[in-house]
């Protein structure tokens, strides 16, 4: 589902001594099926931007178009529900949103709000719980008896069960252990590919952005700063450092390598394997394998 944002401006607490301009004239288009990573310093407007995409915040100026729905400043309320059905958000620490007696009921909450029958919602709950890597038995447990990592997965299942066309992830792996992070991120990438979704990932991890995303948007002080494919973005190290960001560790490594050996290497390697390949070329025929 294509997303188009034009001239979006947002002011928090307009008309109070605490008024703050959070977004300033942001224009952006995201074509259907893109995996977009949004990176930027804390307070750069990332979270504000994504909350506009499903109508949780309304634009002070400008418009947002998702598919054939348009949200403008002072728009109607009717459209919001349709928009929210299409656009699912996994918030930071999504386990804080769990409330129901059983995991099953909690996962069914979303689909039933959007008018699905109980059977359909139950079926979705079963499917999604398996998809996020939990055993079916947890469905009958209280979500509050689960571990932190499991609660996170249940909450994610609750959003996925609505079967959104656009999935927004606001730092979905914050506070997880390294293995949990990788599993969850792999899950999102697989889902993205299998279900032909449009995915928007807000993250502080350059590595995740480089590895999982097709495109990267860099935000700074409420405006778009850079936008492009990972290889383009991470070729601009100075520009990133100017706004408190940096290139992924693999690229940092390659840059140092290049400095030491004096030989140019391929910079757009964002996995350990690719990085190893890039430098192994330097060893010529010498038996360097990994």
């Amino acid at each position, binding site marked *: 589902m294509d997303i188009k944002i034009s001239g979006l401006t947002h002011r928090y607490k307009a*008309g109070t001594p605490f008024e703050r301009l959070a977004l300033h004239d942001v224009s952006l288009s995201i074509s259907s099926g893109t995996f977009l990573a949004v990176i930027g310093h804390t307070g750069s407007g990332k979270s504000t931007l994504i909350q506009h995409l499903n109508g949780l915040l309304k634009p002070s100026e400008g418009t947002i178009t998702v598919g054939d729905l348009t949200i403008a400043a002072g728009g109607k309320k009717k459209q919001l529900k349709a928009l*929210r059905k299409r*656009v699912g958000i996994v918030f930071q620490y*999504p386990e*804080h949103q769990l409330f*129901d007696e059983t995991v099953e009921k909690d996962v069914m909450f979303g689909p039933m709000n959007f008018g699905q029958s109980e059977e359909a919602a139950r079926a979705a709950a079963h499917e999604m719980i398996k998809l996020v890597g939990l055993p079916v038995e947890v469905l009958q447990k209280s979500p509050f008896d689960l571990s932190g990592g499991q609660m996170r997965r249940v909450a994610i299942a*609750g959003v996925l069960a609505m079967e959104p066309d656009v999935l927004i992830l606001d730092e979905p792996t914050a506070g997880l252990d390294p293995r949990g992070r990788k599993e969850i991120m792999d899950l999102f990438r697989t889902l993205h590919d299998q279900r032909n979704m449009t995915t928007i990932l807000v993250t502080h991890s350059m590595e995740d952005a480089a590895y999982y995303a097709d495109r990267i948007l860099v935000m700074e002080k409420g405006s778009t700063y850079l936008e492009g494919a990972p290889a383009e973005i991470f070729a601009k190290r100075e520009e990133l450092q100017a706004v408190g960001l940096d290139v992924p560790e693999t690229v940092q490594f390659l840059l140092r390598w290049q400095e030491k050996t004096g030989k140019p290497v391929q910079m757009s390697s964002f996995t350990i394997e690719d990085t190893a390949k890039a430098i192994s070329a330097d060893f010529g025929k010498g038996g360097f394998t990994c």
Partner: protein
Amino acid sequence: MLDNVIIGQYIPGTSVLHKMDPRAKLLGIFVFIFVVFLANNWLTYGILGVFAVAAILLSQVSLRYMYKGLKPIFFIVIFTFILHILMTKQGEVVYDLGWLKIYNGGVKQGVFISLRLVYLVLVTSLLTLTTTPIDITDGLEYLLAPFKRVKLPVHEFALMMSISLRFIPTLLQETEKIMKAQMARGAEFTAGPVKERIKAFVPLLVPLFISSFKRAEDLALAMEARGYRGGEGRTRLRVLHWGFRDTGALLLLLILAAVLIVLRTHG
């Protein structure tokens, strides 16, 4: 949608009211609450109004902001007004619907009581708008200190109060966050029949309770880890200073009270 609640909100500033000793402000509010009840005619209510507006101007908090903060209580004000119009049967009939007679005494009484409410809310919210929660608690602790003799746990009260005040904004933020998360899952908090709306609050309240308990536990742990063991022998980082300005403000209030006593309608 929760941005409008200004009770418990502190606006940093350097006005006279900001600089006043919190004890003076607390005493002042206490006296003012009684003074408000002295007014009983147009003149005395007018004087009180001038006083309240002057206090707001002195605080340098914008009038528009105060007005926004009043909005949530408008319902109560209007309700009181209507109740008085309907219930008070004094003076002449100004409007006659046959089954319903409105007396001018009722209108007058309605206006007065509504004004009284507005004044009280305005002046008391000025206290929190110009005083940090820590100052308020320190002030209260000093003022209540005599009650320690009768085994009143004054320090604990003060601590409880400062913790609750401190967490009002946090709780509001948390509420908004969870509300958004549930709205993203299709929950509706503002539409539908009342019964549905009450039910819609379960997905909001349960997570709020859980995170509040968790936060309380964390806070208790953090306090213990830093060696907190109650008020016994505890010294202060910041000592309160009572100045001329504070004595002056209280004197001004007493003069106001005296003026109102003279000007109010007797008998």
